């Protein structure tokens, strides 16, 4: 009986694939050609419905260059129910490493519960994973699913807190350049700036992986070269092992597939931009083309629910 229950627990992660896709937002576009930009098939910008000013501030910077981003109505994570969250998070099963985590039990009426993982069969997210962050992850996955279903080869996905530093049309040339440099089939994501920026504008260089209960958390693995590398491959590009911030990414179809597969197989535990364990071939521009509004000036949508007032 114990063996049977353990077997059932081990199968739980595989039973939720359909449930994950059910949480995606359906994206329907009337004139897809309007959002094309050279060799970029589609330009997306993710924005919450109650943040029209953020979308206006971000998109106007692109419209100056006659680039029209498609506004994706973001999933508001604060509106997700406990039942929905149970379909999205990671189920703790034997063999996983217990960590300090977050869950959203129904009896908590939407409040987070911070617990050390102990209960098999219970669904957890990483420590202090806010519902807003979960909504953001789902929004990105919704975009990826739309792009994959539409057959796009290259997409540009942005959040609504971007800062355009250079003419974004150079990205079209940079994509061609990267294709020629490493091979069209040999990269998955290109970040349009060197790294995530902190409040005072300094870069926060991502090296290594955060812990996940379902992966090898040894220091040697998490800080192995494939997750810590920072290799300049040309005056324009750097090959990187990990990266914070998903506010502006150019994705190839291979990268889209990898991200979707990873989320379906391993569920949502960490924030979208922290799950660097996914076997992506990451590159970053060595200078800011499109970066992020400094954090101190930005309005966060991942934080507290009071923004929903």
């Amino acid at each position: 009986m114990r063996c049977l229950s353990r077997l059932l627990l081990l199968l739980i992660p595989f039973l939720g694939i359909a449930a994950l896709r059910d949480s995606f937002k359906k994206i329907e576009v009337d004139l897809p050609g309007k959002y094309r930009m050279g060799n970029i098939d589609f330009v997306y910008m993710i924005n919450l419905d109650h943040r029209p000013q953020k979308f206006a501030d971000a998109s106007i910077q692109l419209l100056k260059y006659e680039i029209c981003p498609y506004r994706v109505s973001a999933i508001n994570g604060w509106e997700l129910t406990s039942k929905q969250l149970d379909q999205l998070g990671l189920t703790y099963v034997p063999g996983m490493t217990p960590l300090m985590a977050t869950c959203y039990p129904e009896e908590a009426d939407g409040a987070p519960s911070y617990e050390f993982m102990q209960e098999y069969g219970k669904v957890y997210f990483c420590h202090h994973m806010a519902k807003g962050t979960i909504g953001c992850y789902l929004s990105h996955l919704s975009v990826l699913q739309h792009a994959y279903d539409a057959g796009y080869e290259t997409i540009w996905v942005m959040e609504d807190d971007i800062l355009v530093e250079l003419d974004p049309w150079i990205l079209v040339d940079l994509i061609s350049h990267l294709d020629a440099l490493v091979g069209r089939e040999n990269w998955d994501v290109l970040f349009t700036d060197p790294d995530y920026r902190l409040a005072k504008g300094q870069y926060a260089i991502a090296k290594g992986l955060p812990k996940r209960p379902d992966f090898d958390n040894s220091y040697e693995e998490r800080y192995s070269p494939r997750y810590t590398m920072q290799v300049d491959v040309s005056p324009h590009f750097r090959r990187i092992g990990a990266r914070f911030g998903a506010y502006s990414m150019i994705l190839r179809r291979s990268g889209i597939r990898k991200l979707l597969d990873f989320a379906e197989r391993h569920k949502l535990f960490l924030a979208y931009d922290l799950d660097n364990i996914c076997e992506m071939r990451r590159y970053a521009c060595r200078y800011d083309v499109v970066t992020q509004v400094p954090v101190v000036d930005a309005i966060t949508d991942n934080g507290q629910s009071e923004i929903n007032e």
Partner: protein
Amino acid sequence: MRFLFYLLLLSLVLGPMHGEELLFEGVWKEVLKTRTDSGNDAYLFLPFNPVIVMVGGYRSGKVKKLAKMYPKGQIFVFESNPEAFPALLKEVAFFGNVFVSNALLYLGSGTFPFYLYRDIYGEPFGSDLECSLLEPSEPLSPFLKKITNVYCLSFTNWCQSQKLFHIDYIDLDLGGCEWDLLQNISEILGSVSVIHIRTHETSFKRDTILFPDVKKGMEGLGFNLLSHWFCELGQGEATFIQRKIFDAMFK
């Protein structure tokens, strides 16, 4: 002349205790430097329905904050200072998740002398409503106490009587007796995630265990220091978390 001597002695004690510079140690040293309120790290580790035991709850502000944060929690508050208890009771009367007692949760049951600290003018000494089971040390003794009695409850027996087999958060402000209690309730600490205590870098009370020894002792009980802010040669507040949580987060 004698009066001036004691006045000078008091100023030497009062000076460092009310030093304005805050010092920090612990894992979150850098984070703490930007904060003015150090006492609320516990919320980062608690479930939505925690069991909280506070010994020394006269600062009803903290009790009320916890009561609002955790409407489904249970908060047991013990405040033995007879001058603080009525105000505390009044402040938290409308919270259905707060249970208040005038007893002192400590090692054994019974009535014991209790010192309410006063300065030479009869005003509260040190932090407001400073009180303790510990006597003041000489030569400050004649000036610094008003003795009353307090009823103590054994922590262990009280947990058994309440059928409390699990506590998430313990908050202790026992006027220097924090370590005395903790080292004697080790069997209860297995379920505790977070312990927050008042600390002492020096003391005008006899037999106070100072923080460096408390820290070492806590490590022996399976708790690692998360954060500690304090005044040099004064008092402070420290948060400890259970080692398995500490290792999962920081190792």
